[in-house]
C-alpha cells in the first residue's frame, strides 16, 4: 500500500474543501435552513404529527439525506473529473498508486466532507426544531454508509463523464427526484396504496426510512430491510468500480 499517496490525495482533496468553504459548507446550510422555513414552519404548521413526531422534526433526517446524497455525488464526481478535465490526471496515472488507493483516497475525502456536512446540517436543524436521536450509533452508521456509498457512486459518474453536462445529469435527473419521492418530506403512509407500492422500488426510501428510524424509532419499512438495501447499493457500487478497473481504466487510452 502506498500510504503516502493516499494521504497526499486525501489531504489535497480536503484542502480543496476548506478552500471552497463557502460553496461546500455554507450554501447547503443556507438551503437547508430555507427548507426549514418553508416546509418546517410555513407548511409544517398546518401538518399534523407523523407517528408522534412533529412535521418539522420529521423532515430532518430526510433533509440530511438529501444533502448527503447530492453532496457525496457532486464532491466525488468533481474530485476525479476535474483532473481529467484540466489534464493534471497525468500525474495520478504516472504515479505508483493502485486503483484501490485512488478510490480509497478520493472516495474517502468526498465521504468525509459529506459526513461533516451532514453533522453541520444536523446542528443547524437543532436550532429550528426539537431533536432527539434515539439510536445515535445507528444514525452514524447510516450516515457513514450513505456517504461512502454515494461518494463511490459519484466517483463512478466522474470517471464516466466526459463533459460537465454528464456530470450534472445523473444528480439532476435521477438522484434529486428519487430523494424527493423517497419520503424525505412525507411518510409513504400518506400516499394512495398504488403509489406506496411504486415507492418501494425507490432505493432512497430505504435510506431515508432507516435514517429516520435511528432518530425517532419510526420507519416506513423495516430497519433490517433498510440496512440490507443500503449495503446492497454499496455492494453494487463496489462491483461497478471493480468492473471499471478490471476492464480498463476509462481515462487511459
Amino acid at each position, binding site marked *: 500500500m502506498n500510504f503516502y499517496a493516499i494521504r497526499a490525495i486525501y489531504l489535497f482533496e480536503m484542502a480543496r474543501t476548506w478552500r471552497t468553504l463557502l460553496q461546500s459548507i455554507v450554501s447547503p446550510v443556507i438551503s437547508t435552513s430555507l427548507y426549514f422555513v418553508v416546509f418546517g414552519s410555513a407548511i409544517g404548521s398546518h401538518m399534523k404529527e407523523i407517528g408522534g413526531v412533529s412535521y418539522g422534526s420529521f423532515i430532518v433526517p430526510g433533509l440530511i439525506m438529501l444533502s448527503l446524497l447530492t453532496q457525496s455525488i457532486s464532491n466525488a464526481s468533481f474530485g476525479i473529473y476535474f483532473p481529467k478535465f484540466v489534464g493534471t490526471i497525468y*500525474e495520478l496515472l504516472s504515479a505508483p498508486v493502485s486503483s484501490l488507493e485512488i478510490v480509497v483516497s478520493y472516495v474517502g475525502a468526498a465521504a468525509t466532507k459529506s459526513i461533516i456536512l451532514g453533522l453541520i446540517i444536523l446542528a443547524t436543524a437543532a436550532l429550528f426544531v426539537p431533536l432527539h436521536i434515539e439510536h445515535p450509533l445507528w444514525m452514524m452508521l447510516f450516515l457513514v454508509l450513505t456517504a461512502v456509498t454515494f461518494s463511490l457512486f459519484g466517483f463512478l459518474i466522474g470517471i464516466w463523464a466526459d463533459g460537465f453536462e454528464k456530470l450534472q445529469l445523473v444528480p439532476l435527473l435521477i438522484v434529486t427526484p428519487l430523494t424527493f419521492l423517497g419520503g424525505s418530506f412525507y411518510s409513504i403512509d400518506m400516499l394512495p396504496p398504488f403509489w406506496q407500492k411504486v415507492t418501494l422500488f425507490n432505493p432512497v426510501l430505504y435510506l431515508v426510512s432507516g435514517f429516520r428510524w435511528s432518530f425517532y424509532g419510526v420507519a416506513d419499512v423495516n430497519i433490517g430491510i433498510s440496512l440490507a438495501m443500503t449495503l446492497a447499493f454499496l455492494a453494487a457500487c463496489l462491483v461497478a468500480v471493480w468492473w471499471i478497473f478490471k476492464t480498463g481504466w476509462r481515462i487511459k487510452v
Partner: protein
Amino acid sequence: MQPIISVSHLSKTYATGFKALKDINLDIRKGEIFALLGPNGAGKTTLISIICGIVNPSEGSVVADGHDIIKDYRAARSRIGLVPQELTTDAFETVWATVSFSRGLFGKPKNPVHIEKVLRELSLWDKKDSKIITLSGGMKRRVMIAKALSHEPQILFLDEPTAGVDVELRRDMWEVVRSLRDTGVTIILTTHYIEEAEQMADRIGVINQGEIILVEEKAELMRKLGKKQLTLQLQGVLETIPGALEKHGLELSQDGDELTYTYDTQQERTGITTLLRDLNEAGIRFRDLQTKQNSLEEIFVSLVREQRS
C-alpha cells in the same frame, strides 16, 4: 551494462485505429542524456506516455531499471519523473503544496529539505507560497519540473521541454539537466528542435511516423551523416566559376568573393586536395578558409526524405 530502460517490440494502436508506434525497440543507457528527435505527430509523446503509465501499450513491453512497467508498475514508476508536454497544473494550490503533493503521490515521506533544494535550483523559492494561477507560463513550467523532481527520480522524461520557453528558463533548465546528469540521473527528452538535441544529448534517436529510424551517438551521427562545407574567402573577385573547376560543384557567393565547396565526410575521398590543386592551377588565391559541419536539421531533413522515398 544493462540498459536503464529497455523497450521491446512496442506498438500502439489508438482506439481510432491509428497506429502511432510500430514495433519500437530502444535501449536507454544509465546516466545518459538521450534525445528523441522527430517532427510533430511522430509518436514521441505516445512513447513517453506508455513508459510512464499514462497510455496502455497495444503490444510489446518496457522494462525500467529492471522492472516491467505493467507487472511491476510500482517499482518502475517510483523511479520515473515526467514533465509532460502540455502545461497542466493545479490552479489554486501554492507552489509548495503542489510540489509536496507530488512527492507524497510517488510514495515518499515528507522531506522539506529536498523540496527546498529543488525549488531553489529552479528559481522558485521566492514563489513557494504563491498560488500557481498567479504565475507566468514559464514559472508554471518550472513548477512542473519541480513536481517531477520532487520524489528524486532516477529517470527523468522531459517532453518538449523548451517549446514556448524563454531564453532564461531554457538556460536554467539545461543547467538543472546537466547537474542532474552529474548525479547519475538518466534523462530522456523529446524535441523537434535540432539544436536542442545537438547541444544537450549524448545520444540521439530519430523517430518518424511511429518508427525509430536510427539511434546513434550524437558525435557519430554528425560524423556519419554530416556533410561538411568548405568556404574559401578569395583575395580577388570572380565573375563566374572557371570551366576547369566546374566538376567540383562549387557555389559562388553573390558578391563573388567566396566559394563554397560541399563534401561528404563519409566518402573515402573528400576531394579537397584536388580542389585546392585545381584552384591553384586556375590562379585563384584565397585569404582564409573555414569548414562547417551540417546541422542536425539538415541531417534530419535528409533522413526523413530518405525514408519517404
